[in-house]
């Protein structure tokens, strides 16, 4: 009877998780959906606590309390601009949990595991461990603890692939001989090292893909846990998470016109230094007062935010500028490139935080036809996503990447910290075009100056 109750709680949780994710297909149903998912989680936890195997509750209660405290603190105080780091860290936590459960299962049962459970356990520990360290490296890069530039050396790919081959070799031997404990712990250690080496060579600008991919691995590690302890709700939730990460990484790759292998093994930044000539011309420097007049008398203005807006925390200032413009009758739109920022949807969240209604946020396909009828496009700390070389120069390292075609607007103003080439190290021909002007300085300060000047115009 009790078993039925427990299994029913898992079934209910699975259904509620799926309904919860379905709610996310629209901003208006999203919150309700998440409440269903939360309820599902509580149901599953209560069901689990009733299981016969659980005989002592001290460790459980201590763990639940400590975890809730950390989670709640992070949930409440992490700023929206730090969302990419937070996400990377949570992938590390999730993967570590899966990995540890796997290690404990092996430690307890070892040689007695059948082939099927050993296989599932191997996947769980392999994916879990490499995702843990990989996510920690991604976190360090995003948080600025480690330089965001790709870390490369000669023979890196060959070394990494051999390491992976040895790790998988251990797994295969274990699959047929679950008793060889040495290999299990060797595999565990190698997977930890491989995770670090996998993410080190990847540049900060490629982080949206990497985060999505690590998301996928963390989910699959949970699903593998479900296989190992034959628990369906774990399989379902893990697969949903893994699938979601996988779909997102494909979306991100498409938005950069690159393959996943290229992102993982291409070491983007190192290639681009060789091909950074655009021929010349001068970049024209604008002054804030002139730009403000152009904005104030425009019919339509489009803002293009990038990672620079996030680092300068300029989203609130931007919203005030937009308010000032709307009061004067200017139509304001925001153009969001799928890989703008450091994680999928990063810009949308920041603008939503600044109270920008989502009906003003436009995706690539919807905003591009509008640029020719746009009076002024303002690029805020974005570079690659508006780099015309991607469209015009077949030899560019980012050739074929779909871009926001701001150069078709009557005037483009680029807010940029300095004259440097930005994170990817790529030169941008847009900056030399006749209809493009540069406004140097911290994005937030520039926007505040623009807003004042608009009020005075």
């Amino acid at each position, binding site marked *: 009877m009790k078993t039925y109750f427990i299994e029913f709680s898992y079934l209910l*949780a699975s259904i509620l998780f799926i309904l*919860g994710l379905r709610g*996310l*297909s629209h*901003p*208006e149903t*999203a919150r309700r959906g*998440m409440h269903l*998912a939360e309820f599902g989680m509580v149901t599953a*936890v209560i069901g*689990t606590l009733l*299981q016969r195997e*659980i005989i002592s*509750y001290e*460790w459980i209660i201590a*763990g639940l309390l*400590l975890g809730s405290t950390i*989670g709640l603190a*992070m*949930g*409440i105080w*992490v700023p*929206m601009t730090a969302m990419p780091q*937070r*996400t990377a860290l949570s*992938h590390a*936590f*999730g993967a570590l*949990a899966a990995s*540890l459960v796997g*290690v*404990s299962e092996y430690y*307890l049962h070892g040689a007695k595991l*059948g082939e*099927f*459970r050993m296989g599932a356990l191997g996947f769980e520990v392999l994916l879990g461990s490499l995702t843990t360290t990989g996510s920690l490296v991604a976190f360090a890069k995003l948080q600025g603890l480690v330089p965001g530039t790709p870390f490369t050396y000669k023979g890196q790919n060959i070394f990494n692939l051999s390491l992976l081959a040895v790790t998988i070799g251990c797994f295969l031997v274990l699959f047929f001989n679950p008793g060889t404990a040495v290999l299990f712990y060797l595999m565990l250690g190698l997977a930890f090292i491989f995770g670090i080496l996998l993410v080190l060579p990847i540049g900060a600008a490629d982080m949206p893909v990497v985060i999505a991919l690590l998301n996928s691995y*963390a*989910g699959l590690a949970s699903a593998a*846990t479900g296989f190992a*302890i034959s*628990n369906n709700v*774990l*399989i*379902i939730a893990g*697969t*949903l*998470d*893994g*699938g*979601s990460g996988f*779909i997102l990484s494909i979306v991100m790759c498409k938005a950069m016109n690159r393959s996943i292998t290229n992102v993982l093994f291409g070491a983007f930044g190192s290639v681009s230094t060789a091909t950074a000539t655009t021929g010349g011309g001068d970049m024209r420097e604008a002054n804030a007062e002139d730009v403000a007049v152009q904005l104030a008398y425009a019919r339509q203005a489009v803002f293009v935010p990038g990672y620079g807006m996030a680092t300068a925390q300029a989203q609130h200032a931007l919203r005030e500028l937009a308010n000032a413009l709307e*009061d004067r009758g200017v139509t304001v739109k925001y153009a969001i490139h*799928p890989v703008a920022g450091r*994680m*999928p*949807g990063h810009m*949308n969240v920041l603008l*939503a935080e600044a109270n920008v*209604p989502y*009906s003003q946020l436009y995706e690539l396909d919807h905003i591009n036809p509008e640029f020719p009828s746009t009076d002024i496009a303002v690029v805020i700390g974005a570079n690659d996503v508006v780099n015309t070389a991607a469209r015009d120069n077949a030899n560019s390292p980012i050739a074929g990447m779909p871009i926001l075609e701001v150069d078709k607007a009557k005037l483009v103003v680029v807010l940029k910290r300095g004259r440097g080439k930005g994170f990817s190290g790529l030169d941008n021909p847009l900056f030399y075009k006749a209809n493009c002007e540069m406004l140097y300085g911290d994005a937030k300060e520039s926007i505040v100056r623009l807003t004042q000047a608009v009020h005075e115009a």
Partner: protein
Amino acid sequence: MSSETVIATFYVFILAAFLGYQVISRVPPLLHTPLMSATNAISGISLVGSLVTAGAHQTTVSAVLGFVAVVCSTTNVVGGFVITDRMLKMFKRKATPPTKKSED
């Protein structure tokens, strides 16, 4: 483990993968960040496995591993749901004071 169970498990996995594809490809790019933190919170369901490991108390080693796993998964579950809700609360269709005049 019986072969029936193994096969049933694969059925669950494959069906979940198809269903996941259908559900998730309908999520608009607008909500991709909340989607990521939501799926992250949901996959914190590995808490279920961690709880059993921590509570079965077969050896001290497994109890400690289980404890760390419980802490990690609970952090994800609680943190993930709180942050997702914080984000979703911010998405509004219209600006709070409607000040949109198109042309005069």
